[in-house]
């Protein structure tokens, strides 16, 4: 058991195993994404209130879910790297940050695009969008800290501390922003109420959520592989790979 876990944490074994998994993961992701998009864009009926324009939730909501999920994964990986000095955890945290930021950005853009037909304007300061914006800044902070420190291992440790501080703060920020937005009686329709959503819309939504998760894992593995190659470039196995053996 311990040897298995130890192997899992070794960058070299990770590189090999992920190389084998990646083609499968890519195909499953593509298929799920296609199924979800078809179900959401074609299969589901138009909303009785918003017509066709509501369909952007099939991208917006999974992105928002992923933006939070990836941050928590990044903070957890950072904690593992910080406490147990496992290099692969540092790699995962570093590779996750831009992915999470992209999901957050996507959530913001789709939320804003949805706003135009809904409220007539591209931006409103409602709780959800404002929280996402602050989350984007938190991601930028982690990415900025990573980039500012030359030594990768020190950079990962510092970014891990920051990610953990951010993770503690996220619930506080969410709550305070939500409280603040209720004072202004703004529209809160970016929130999907679970009981009132119809099954024909729920299924594509959950499919897309799963597809996004798999997309994250697939792209994470790809980024982690190149991150591993860069960090371990001085080691023997990477030199061999580079030489083409």
């Amino acid at each position, binding site marked *: 058991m311990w040897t298995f876990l130890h192997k899992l944490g070794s960058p070299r074994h990770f590189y090999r195993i992920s190389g084998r998994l990646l083609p499968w993961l890519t195909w499953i992701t593509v298929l799920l994404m296609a199924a979800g998009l078809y179900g959401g864009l074609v299969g589901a009926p138009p909303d009785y209130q918003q017509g066709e324009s509501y369909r952007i939730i099939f991208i917006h909501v999974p992105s928002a879910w992923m933006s939070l999920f990836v941050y928590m994964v990044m903070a957890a990986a950072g904690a593992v790297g910080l406490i147990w000095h496992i290099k692969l955890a540092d790699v995962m945290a570093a590779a996750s940050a831009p992915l999470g930021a992209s999901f957050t950005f996507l959530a913001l853009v789709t939320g804003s695009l949805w706003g135009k037909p809904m409220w007539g304007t591209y931006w409103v300061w409602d709780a959800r969008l404002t929280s996402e914006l602050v989350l984007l800044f938190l991601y930028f902070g982690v990415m900025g800290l990573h980039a500012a420190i*030359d*030594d990768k291992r020190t950079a990962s440790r510092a970014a891990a501390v920051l990610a953990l501080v951010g993770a503690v703060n996220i619930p506080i920020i969410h709550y305070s922003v939500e409280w603040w937005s209720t004072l202004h009686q703004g529209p809160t329709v970016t929130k999907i109420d679970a009981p009132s959503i119809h099954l024909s819309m729920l299924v594509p939504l959950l499919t897309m959520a799963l597809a996004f998760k798999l997309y994250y894992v697939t792209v994470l593995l790809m980024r982690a592989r190149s991150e591993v190659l860069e960090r371990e*470039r*001085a080691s023997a196995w990477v030199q061999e790979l580079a030489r083409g053996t």
Partner: protein
Amino acid sequence: MTQAHEAPAQRPAPESLLAAAGLTCFRGDRLLFRDLSLSVNAGQALEVRGPNGCGKTTLLRILCGLTLPEDGTIRWRGRVLRSHDPDYLRELRYIGHSDGVKLALSPRENLAIAVALDSGADEAELEAALACLDLADFMDVPCRTLSAGQRRRVGLARLTLGGARLWLLDEPFTALDRSGIEAVRALIEAHLDGDGCAVLTSHQPINLDAGRSASIDLAS
């Protein structure tokens, strides 16, 4: 490659105080040293030799816990050290490249702070430590007005306070004049006489008694 030349112990059963094994360290991409081992006994000084950039400072920083090594363990009195071990830190004095001296404060005030953080000592002991290093006439002027060598002496003054057994000295003679070097050498000798131990680096010859110093060379 590292080579340890250990001189035969002069007194019966020397107590092995500091022992490190398997130390590996990278600085960015560069491997500084791999699988380095060393051992220091009571009453012994270990001199770390090597050209610029070979990792002497990094080794000292690893020994006091400021820098994390890639791999390896350090033992103090036989006990494996975890990070920030208060008992170890209490017995340790580290002199790095920087003096650790606040320019707006006087030598007495600087020393009082250093001592409060490390252990405790009273007024008379502070004054004695400063006098030992020829700072008796400068105890209460701001360090801003002192020369680089004098500031170095202020930083070194805390070595003798608090009864630390291990001295980690990185280029202690920097900026000192001949009398300063002699004074510090005398302090080190007295420390070793009192069963303390030291690890030091220096570009100048240290010239301690042959029986009590060993050396390792980091040149690879």
